[in-house]
């Protein structure tokens, strides 16, 4: 009896382990594996594979469901929209050969390149754009990015609510190569939007035929970008191969790209040092060690992290209290000492680099409107406390990721040192944090927003008041100043670049400086090491962050 049991257990264990053996993926990278950067002797000319990684799973490649950077990275390199961001992060013509804009800025007519094909040889037509865009505006889209179309395209929102038919939506295929788009407002940054994955085309016949299987495996998809996917596993990563059918294939230098998944930061660094990765993001604590390394780089994103005050909270409805909190934080320590990864101390809500006018970026034009001034902070605090009648007890709501925790701990220490108050930190899972905020059940919270396109409006229209309630959502602090909404709405409808910009500059000052609805903290940065062999691997500060198309190996000379 006992022997039988033991042998059964062993046999099943063996069976399971043989089965499990099939779980290995990726295969040997062979000559593609990069060599250690400190070992120049190895022949670099044989290199044909770039090895990149992401710190999170690539959960989906279905573009109407994708909402995270990992998915965007893959989609951006295997698909293409009308435009693609170039090395200077400006939109350049991609699938679109030419376009015209009507004088009122409301109608765009795009002409596609000739002879475009999907990776399976199907011709790529204007209808593929119409299909994909309608999908993104419908309830099928689970990525929550519907607004990125419905805010702009005529009847888009109504289509999503099943109120109008597809024919009435402002996107039409005039013929196979001509796409006509009708916008609600003149949108100077519309070309930026077309570089985003939600604006990529999809082949209706193929997607419909695949049904629920679309996007699940590499062979369940067809591609129109610089690369095609040869294998895909959410937890392991993807392998990419150059797309021969791509219109600009001759300018794609690297034949193969692997995107692996490594969740642990120090494991990624180990893998980089072992020579199995071409690029690695550094955590703050490792920056000091590698700062002077020639392989060390930083990039600052168009992404701001800020304190959101709830204007309906008894204590924080007091403007002096909010201002005191804002002035009490020394953001340069936060950026340089705590984060130390290329993040920059914020000077306002709109991050550095976001375009303004010919005279400078938006930030340069509006200056520093959220500075550090401990004396002023103390003064405002005392005034606020006097108005409230007693010192309020404050609690800062945060999501449970380690970077946010570090920021919260820092902010808490600044309040302790500069205002002499002890603020509680309330950490919750991110869903729980969002629900508390949506239910108006918080005092103030750490929140972040990344630009979807290169224009200040991507930040500023978040605080616009709801037409019914007359205030912004609880998540945006119940901000109820009609002057602010007026500025934003007038900017949205304004076809004149100059007055439009002025409205937005004023709006930011009103939001951050006068009403102190938010206190910006920093603009997010990345510090990373990148193998010297890899050149022109472009990292965009917004949208889809990495561009394999322009990358090449140092020694592999191309035409």
């Amino acid at each position: 009896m006992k022997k039988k049991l033991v042998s059964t257990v062993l046999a099943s264990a063996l069976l399971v382990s043989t089965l499990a053996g099939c779980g290995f993926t990726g295969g040997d990278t062979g000559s593609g594996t990069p060599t250690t950067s400190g070992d120049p002797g190895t022949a670099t000319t044989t290199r044909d594979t770039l090895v990149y990684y992401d710190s999170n799973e690539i959960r989906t490649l279905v573009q109407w469901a994708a909402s995270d950077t990992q998915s965007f990275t893959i989609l951006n390199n295997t698909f293409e929209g009308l435009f693609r961001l170039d090395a200077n992060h400006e939109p350049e013509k991609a699938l679109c050969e030419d376009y015209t804009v009507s004088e009122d800025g409301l109608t765009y007519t795009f002409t596609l390149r000739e002879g475009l094909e999907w990776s399976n040889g199907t011709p790529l037509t204007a209808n593929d754009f119409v299909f994909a865009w309608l999908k993104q505006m419908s309830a099928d889209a689970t990525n929550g990015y519907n607004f990125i179309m419905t805010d702009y395209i005529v009847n888009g929102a109504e289509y999503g609510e099943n109120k109008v038919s597809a024919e009435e939506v402002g996107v039409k295929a005039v013929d196979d190569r001509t796409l006509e788009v009708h916008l609600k407002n003149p949108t100077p940054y519309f070309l930026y939007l077309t570089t985003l994955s939600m604006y990529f085309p999809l082949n209706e016949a193929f997607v419909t035929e695949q049904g629920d299987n679309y996007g699940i495996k590499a062979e369940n998809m067809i591609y129109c970008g610089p690369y095609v996917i040869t294998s895909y596993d959410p937890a392991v990563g993807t392998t990419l191969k150059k797309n021969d059918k791509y219109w600009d294939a001759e300018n794609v230098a690297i034949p193969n790209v692997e995107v692996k998944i490594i969740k642990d930061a120090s494991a990624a660094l180990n893998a980089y040092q072992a020579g199995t990765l071409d690029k690695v993001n550094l955590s703050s604590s490792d920056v000091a060690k590698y700062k002077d390394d020639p392989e060390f780089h930083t990039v600052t994103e168009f992404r701001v992290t800020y304190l959101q005050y709830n204007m309906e909270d008894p204590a924080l409805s007091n403007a002096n209290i909010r201002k005191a909190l804002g002035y009490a934080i020394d953001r340069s320590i936060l950026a340089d000492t705590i984060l130390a990864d290329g993040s920059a101390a914020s000077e306002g809500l709109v991050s550095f680099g976001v375009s303004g006018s010919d005279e400078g970026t938006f930030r340069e034009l509006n200056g520093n409107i959220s500075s550090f001034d401990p004396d002023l902070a103390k003064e405002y605090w005392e005034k606020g406390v006097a108005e409230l009648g007693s010192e309020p007890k404050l609690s800062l709501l945060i999501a449970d990721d380690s970077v946010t925790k570090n920021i919260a701990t820092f902010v808490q220490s600044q309040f302790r040192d500069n205002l002499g108050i002890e603020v509680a930190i309330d950490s919750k899972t991110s869903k729980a944090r969002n629900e508390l905020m949506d239910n108006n059940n918080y005092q103030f919270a750490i929140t972040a927003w990344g630009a979807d396109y290169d224009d200040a409006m991507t930040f500023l229209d978040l605080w616009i008041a709801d037409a019914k309630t007359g205030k912004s959502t609880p998540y945006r602090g119940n901000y109820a100043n009609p002057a602010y909404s007026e500025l934003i709405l007038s900017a949205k409808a304004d076809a004149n670049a100059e007055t439009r910009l002025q409205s937005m500059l004023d709006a930011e000052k009103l939001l951050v400086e006068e009403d102190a609805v938010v206190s910006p903290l920093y603009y997010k940065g990345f510090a990373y090491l990148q193998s010297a062999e890899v050149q022109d691997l472009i990292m965009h500060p917004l949208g889809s962050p990495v561009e394999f198309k322009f990358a090449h190996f140092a020694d592999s000379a191309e035409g």
Partner: protein
Amino acid sequence: MNQEKNMDYQNIPRELFTKVQVDQGERERIGRPSLTAWQDGWIRLKQNKAAVVSLFVIIAIVALAILGPVFSPYNFAQTDYSATYQGPSLAHLFGTDMYGRDQFTRIWYGTRISLLIGFVAACLDLFVGVTYGAVSALLGGKVDAIMQRIIEILVGIPHLIIVILLMMVLPAGVGTIIVALAITGWVNMARLVRARILQLKNQEFVMAAEVLGTSQKNIILRHLIPNTVGIIVINAMFTIPSAIFTEAFLSFIGIGLSEPQASLGVLINNGYSVLQSYPYLLICPAIVIILIMVCFSILGDGLRDALDPRMSK
């Protein structure tokens, strides 16, 4: 053949036998003072040098945990951004962290909380786990079946869901951590004790006790539990560190301590994330926790030797 041998014995001359002294007084003499099992254990524990040393080290750690933060020139929350990531030095015995906070103060402050968590976990194990397991095994039959199914249900429901829901309804703090630990923290102990008592309950000495009319309660307390002490002690040694690390996880998702408070588990987690550049931030708290565990283990083994009735010679 037997007969012959017996004959042999009978032929032994009587002179070779000496009479064992049968003194009335000697017969009633009590060889050892009358002691309860626990007193007996204490005496034997004191003879185990390693255990005694461990006991003193534990007392020292507890004293440091209570007094360390009090006598330190720094406060556990006090930041100094001009002195971040300082290695161990005279000014900061265990160095400073990313906020320039003194690790020495924070580690002893954290030890307090971790010891408390460990103590709570051990109590849960001892009171809930041991009782549950013993009752289940002794009553047997339907009661045992139902009690074991309850354990399966408790283990089967994903812990993280319960923890997130707890987080929504209870305020963050040590109390909530204890509630979270209480749900399943004692299950392994209950199963181990049950298994051991199932093994013991049909053995002769229990039967003998039953025949002699010993009450059910006394059978449990005087016969079954002492024979189970070995497993109980060992399992408690595993429960304590696992509770300390569970606390760190719970604190991370927001159910327990919040900054600037710390526990050893939280310090180790934080230290791990900077391991490559500042290993001392991991090593110092890890040494404290290992020291605590080594001492508890030796003490635990000592206790087991001292309390196990069969070990008394």
